[in-house]
């Protein structure tokens, strides 16, 4: 579904991604792990079409989207959960949810979102930035589900969440997968990652250092955690 080939990204002179190639098949959940600063968020930005300094190709469903502007990529079914949660201060919670057009075959209704996230329903008329960090995480995830995005690009969706909420995020991602949604997930929590994902890429110094399956990650968990510095 998603194919990245020889992707390089720069901030000015500094090269952050070096010839990254990876693939995510339809219906898969694939994680991207790596130290802080490895370039994971930059990679998601490149896929979304928001990073100006890049080289290489990005393909979606066999179609080259490298030159496609971000809003058109979103309309092809990409749903971004940004690392900073992407809450709008000038939009209410409901507006944050309904801002993106629905782009996929199976968008969640607002009622369904509020049923799944009662906390958001309670605060539906508040400015999104007034929510707690955890609630903003939920909002960011709920927003791409409401879009009906076919490919979710989730940037550390469990960061700073209580174990209970981490559990809920896991349930949601597994449910999305059951409905055929594809997920590229940036994740530092290896335990969580092996619980939801099919495969994993380790990004180190801007390169894909390793591709691993769940059993490999589990057996090397201690080594990987030490490497990630967690």
């Amino acid at each position, binding site marked *: 579904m998603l194919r990245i080939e020889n992707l390089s990204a720069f901030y000015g002179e500094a090269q952050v991604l070096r010839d990254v190639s990876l693939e995510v098949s339809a219906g898969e959940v694939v994680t991207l792990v790596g130290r802080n600063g490895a370039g994971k968020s930059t990679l998601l930005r490149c896929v979304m079409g928001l990073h100006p300094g890049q080289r290489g190709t990005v393909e979606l469903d066999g179609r080259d989207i490298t030159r496609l502007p*971000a*809003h058109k990529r*979103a309309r092809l079914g990409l749903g971004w959960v940004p690392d900073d949660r992407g809450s*709008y201060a000038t*939009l209410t919670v409901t507006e944050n949810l309904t*801002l993106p057009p629905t782009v996929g075959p199976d968008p969640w209704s607002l009622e369904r979102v509020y049923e799944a996230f009662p906390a958001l329903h309670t605060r539906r008329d508040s400015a999104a930035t007034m929510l707690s960090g955890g609630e903003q995480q939920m909002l960011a995830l709920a927003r791409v589900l409401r879009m009906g995005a076919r490919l979710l690009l989730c940037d550390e969706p469990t960061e700073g969440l209580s174990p209970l909420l981490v559990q809920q995020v896991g349930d949601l991602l597994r449910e999305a997968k059951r409905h055929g949604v594809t997920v590229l997930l940036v994740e530092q929590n290896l335990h969580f990652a092996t619980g939801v994902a099919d495969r994993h890429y380790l990004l180190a110094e801007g390169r894909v250092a390793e591709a691993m399956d769940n059993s490999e990650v589990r057996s090397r968990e201690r080594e990987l955690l030490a490497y990630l510095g967690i």
Partner: protein
Amino acid sequence: MSGFAQNTFNGLVSGAFYALLALGLAVIFGMLRVVNFAHGAFYMLGAFGAYVLLAEAGVPFWAALVIMPVGLALLGMALERAVIHRLTKLDPLYNFLLTFGLTLILQDLVKLRYGVQSSPYETPSLLSGSVDFGLFDFPTYRVFILGFAVLLCVAVWWVLTRTRIGMVVRASTERPDLTRAFGIDVGRWVTPVFGFGIGLAGLAGVLAAPMRAVNPLMGADLIIVVFAVVVIGGLGSIFGSVAAGFGIGLVQAWGEAYLSNFPLVSQTIVFVVMAGVLLWRPAGLFGREEAPA
């Protein structure tokens, strides 16, 4: 007491002009991150256009009130497409050079054709005379301006806060990149928003024609205060610009009335207020620190 009411009323009427102009500057800045130093020139064009339409073609005030804002909005959109949009990728210095240069060009074009003397514009007959409010009476035309400006500000507010277009504009203003990533073609909204802001300036100009001297420099004098208003309200804040517009109109009118023995103070009071506000709140009364894109 009636003197106070008079001053307050006049302050609100001046404030209405400040609010309309500041509102246009705010929506333009929000969407384009461009400070439009040519805003006063479009205000002048609105007034001058109304004058020329009446004097040379017999087009009445009410028609000018529609023709000029629409015409100037179209001119603004054309300018945005032709040159303004190039500013987004350039150093802010070019923003100043281009829009200030535009001001000089527009002013001089008008000067070339019509000279620098002020032209009279008659108050439309429907709005001549005065309205009796019991204890005081106010000129009908000024009452009309105040009511019209308030209605317009409320309408803009309603569109921005209650409609999908308003939501898209708010989102694009706050975080353009993020908004693109949610499937919204932010670029498509830039030109109409610029045109809308220019149209508001033109409208304020038409409204000013019957009560202010119509001449090529009328915008240049006014716009300096409007920039102070925008800074006080918080650059880019819609609500702040309107509130500060009316507020500064009041402060100025009261200052002129009650501090007339201290001309230095009454003439600079707007900038004293601005300095005070900035010391207290660097982003302006209703401004927010810039969020990351």
